[in-house]
């Protein structure tokens, strides 16, 4: 079967698993905060995260080939909520869910 254009990126980019700690560090950098300052169920909007930064994070995390939908992240803007989404996607792809 021919390779479909939509599949190319998935094939050539190795999937580096995303961890909860990496997510926490990425969010903290966006907010100019220490990672420890971000609690699992803190509202990221209350911590100062805006939609453009959130979108940037989602884009960064999808660079490994995960198909992430910003709208899902927008529904639950907390570290725990986001980790649950990423974890489920990675599990569906068979990546190790650390």
């Amino acid at each position: 079967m021919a390779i479909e254009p939509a599949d190319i990126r998935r094939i050539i980019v190795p999937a580096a698993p995303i961890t909860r700690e990496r997510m926490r560090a990425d969010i903290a950098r966006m907010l100019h905060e220490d990672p420890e300052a971000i609690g699992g169920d803190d509202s990221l909007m209350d911590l100062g995260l805006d939609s453009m930064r959130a979108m940037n994070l989602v884009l960064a995390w999808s660079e490994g080939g995960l198909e992430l939908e910003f709208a899902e992240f927008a529904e639950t803007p907390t570290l725990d909520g986001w980790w649950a989404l990423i974890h489920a996607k990675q599990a569906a792809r068979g990546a190790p869910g650390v």
Partner: protein
Amino acid sequence: MVHPVSDPRAPAHPLTEAQAGLWYAQRLDPANPLFNTGQSIEFTGPLDRDAFAAALAQAVTEADALALRLVDDPAGPYQVVDPASRPMLEVIDLSGEVDPPAAAQAAISRDMATPVDPTRDRLAAERLFVLGPQHHIWQQRIHHLAIDGYGMILLTQRVAELYTARLRARTPGAPAPGIAAAFVEDATYRASDRRAKDGAYWRARFADRPEAASLTAGVPASAHAFHRHVVEIDAEAFARLRARAERTSIPWPDIVTALSAAYVQRHTQTPEVIVGVPFMARLGSAAARVPAMLMNVLALRVTVPSGVPLDDFLDAVAGSLVRARRHGRYRSEQLRRDLRLVGGNRRLHGPLINLLPFDETPRFEGLTSRLDVLSTGPVEDITFAFRLHGADGLRLEVDANPALYDIAAVEAHARRLAHFIAAASAAARLDDVPTATPAEAERHLVNLNATDHPVPDTTLAALIGEGLVATPDAPALRFGGTTLDYAGLEARSRALAEQLVAAGIGADERVVVALPRSFELVVALIAVLRAGAAYLPLDLAQPDARLSRILASATPRFVLARAQDAHRFTGKAEVLAPEDWRTVPVGEPLPVPRPEDAAYVIYTSGSTGEPKGVVIEHRAIVNRLLWMRAHYGFGPRDRILQKTPATFDVSVWEFFLPFLAGACLVIAPPEAHRDPQELARILREETITTAHFVPSMLAAFLAEPSAQGLVLARVFCSGEELPADLRDRFHRTLKAELHNLYGPTEAAVDVSFWPAGPEDRSTPVPIGFPVWNTRLYVLDEAGRPQPPDVPGHLFLGGVQLARGYLGRPDLTRERFRPDPFRPGERVYATGDLALWRADGAVVFLGRSDHQIKIRGLRVELGEIEAAVMASGRVRQAGIVAREDRGTKRIVAYLVPAPGLEPGMDLAALKADLASRLPDYMVPAAFVGLDALPVTANGKLDRAALPAPDFAGTGSRAPDTPTERQLAALFAAQLAIDGPIAAEDDFFALGGDSLHAVALLLQVRERWGRDPGLGALFAQSTVEGFARLIEAEGDVDAGLGPLVTLAQGDPGRPPLFVIHPAGGLSWCYGRLARALTPRRTVYGLQAPALAAGVATPESLEALARDYVARIRRLQPRGPCHLLGWSVGGILAQAMAVRLREDAAEVGVVALLDSYPCDVWRGEPDPGEDGAVKALLAIAGHDPDRLPALALNRAAVRAFLRATDSPLGRLPEAALDGVVRVVAGNNALVRGHFHRRYDGVLTHFRAALDHQGRDLSPELWAPYAAQIDVIDVPSLHAHLTGPEATARVAPVLARALAQADSREKVACATAV
């Protein structure tokens, strides 16, 4: 509350805040298709149509928004989810077409251009075009009320997901929540404290906002289409931006937003800009995944400081964006209401900057998809959308309102912004980023200024000398009916030159010439040049103090002046009066000046209070004169009028060009340059070919009846802006070329030219292109070349630049600077603002400093301020040129010296100034203040200065009706609020010749008489001029049976307009003046307005009377008729009557009139109705004045109190109006129409008659044809400004067509 809908159980939802704004906008503009958003996706590959149809059906079923139906209810609009409104997939097979893709594009364009009525039509459409077995296009069109851009992506991705799941036989993900989530979110937010806090944030943030500016000056009005141009952002530049984002932790989309705002600022050149930033409003919302309309537009204030690192600027903007998004749920429509920015041209923000930092291309299993976003909603102004595509491509999509931008401008902005962002990506400071693209800069600085032209390196003296001997017998000068030939001029000027040389005059020395217009004046000027010296013209009308300052600075060797004026120069320079001049040359050789020697010195107003002497060298003026001779083809047959005072440098070409062309110079008598009638006489009698006018004088001249139809070869304008309407009036009045020239004294008269011919439609009229060997630069504050259409500072370069200011190297350095683009050369900073158009023509936009022009003469406000301070009566002074309601005047704001009262003796101060300044520089008003208002940075706060009270000084209130009306006209014309007394003088109140012309036009409209400009100059008080008007005939206060509403081309048949119910036809004044080309418009008014005139027996009798009246004025026809309401009924009856008389009928136009049959059945409204009609005529809605008793006395008192023009009518006349209204009601009911065998042109008030069965077709039995034009107006507003703007062009066209039919008919008859 449950409303009756197709599914009675469907719950009704109020509109969300996000929907409400769109709803009202669409209702205001129901025909606008841009409220539909849309996209198309082109599929290449094997599309499984059944799977696609199934996937789409499921996605549509999940997306309640697509099933919304809107209901307009008196209690407010609401919406229901109506399954019957869900879109069904329409499959359209175009594979059999010759060009299937083109057929699909056409079908899509048609669909996107079709407006949707959200109360009747489905909000969404889903269409699949089959172009071939492997080729499909899926078009979605969804009304903005139902969805926003991100919602469209969600919906599309859901279809892709369902399709792919089907093909792979997998279970798709869970659907998004229903639309109820969005309704709940909206209701919750509306009631929340957060909304209150958000609102407070925005109101505080915008309390001191600047005015929102954009890339053009136009006023945004919703258009029904938009221009689009798409460019790719350079990939390396985008990579650099993302690297910067990485380094600064600012998301790259915010960097692009900030740079785009900076780009906007380069065009507005305001310290701060306000841009609109679309905001998806989904983060943290339960409705985040719902396809629905949620997005908002955030107004972002962006300050662009100079000299700071780019990263600091980006950081500041990113911070503002974070704060704005934190409060981003608060609707911008609500903020506009909070800030009272609703309606008209009041805007909250300029351009929209929309960042879409995600790849929107959907992934359909086995297919290649290409997305094309067709529309994202109405484009008010201009939108810059940046869309990510693929992994790292960034595309800039510029959408713009075609009413404000042409497609070339849109393309230019796309290219320029892309270049700006690319340049900024590598810059350390914004200051280093050019606004213009390299191609634009090259065209501007080099191509448009490629004016090199060989000119002999000689002197004006040499050229004149050669000219004088070439044709000795030809006439050189004409003055007062006598002629001096070239030989005579040669001899006299040589004799005087010899005398000056013998007296020891030499190169670069100044000789004052202060003579009135005469042969001697020209002889003197030429003689000074031939003697190798520079002439210095002086006006003896200026005060001694100023004259002395000039003489002290210029140190002239001699003065050529009349003996009776010699005392003005006593002790300053030796005076040679004409009686003492030699007239016969002795034949001594004259000196030969060099091209770099001074030819003349002209003094202009100086900002420091000292007049400045501009030194022009021979080489400069030779270039100017030889260019003009060649460019316009001057030759021996030309007769050039000399009417410009020698102190104004325009006179330089008038004086000398004739002798370089073998032409004749005709000298106007002294003072004739102010007298239009005298000028018209000279132009005609002396068969002048060439004349110059300052535009304000040209306006006065064109109003002179004897100027009509004059024929010249060419007329030149300069000295002031040439208004476009003046150009057009010129071509309607005279037969001549019209040329607009521009230049400061500092660059040898003129440096640019523009042919303002009859075909020129430019608004404003450009100053045009550079003359030979001349460069025009338009630069921004930082000296960067501006792109086309962007205002900047005008700099001049080339051979015509002056040497500098006499004896003022400091001022010379300030204004004459090194040319930044041509090392070793100079440029002159004009202080003028300008732009260059896309075609390369330069447009003058005004001054950047405090210099103004009064009657074409340059005035530095600083010079006036210095004179005020020198009076010793004032501690502080601010002199400004104010424009109050279109009238420009010099106003002095003064803080009196200690010990003097604020109401100090202004008369004494004025007298003092008159002794120091020329009359045109003396302020028109003086305002005493306790302190001058200053801005935060200590500058004079011009905005805080009170408007001057221009009320006059007289004490007697206007008494007679004529005086009262005339005083009102003075006030309106001069924009004066205070009372005007009978003794007040029009010119002392601030009027100038332009005002005078406009006043006379109104006098003519009001009284049908034109006493003329001269009469107004002679009798300029209210009482004096009123006496003149009255002397010309009986005063009818505009109530006579025939009034002239507009005066136009006598060659065009007039238009007769017939009064509506009230019997007055003043209401047509606006329409009459709006007709182009101008045509005479007569208003017919009810004779029964006059006391003692009985109501006519029938409408037919009245029509007969009117026909008789108009045939006395227009015996042959054609007669054009127009009437509003009852007037239309009369017009139809008159047309029938005219046909019976075998008279030619032209246009018969009805402004929302309906046949009498409609009214017959309705009860006569009686006197109450008549009084109500009177209120309606005055512009009041009688039903909204419930407290007002409906009787004549109460209504009369009300009209007087509300300052209605009707209230100024004498009592008898008001009674007449009431009587006529009542009479007309009865006449209409008793009238039976006859058939008019011609065309009725019906202007229908399309917004009116809700629930009434009034249609223009009711006229069908009474006319051969009815042309209907819908005007979006209420019946009562049909003669208002908006409706007139629609009616006038259509009417003018119909009239022109009827006129040409008439001409053809005549020609055939002959």
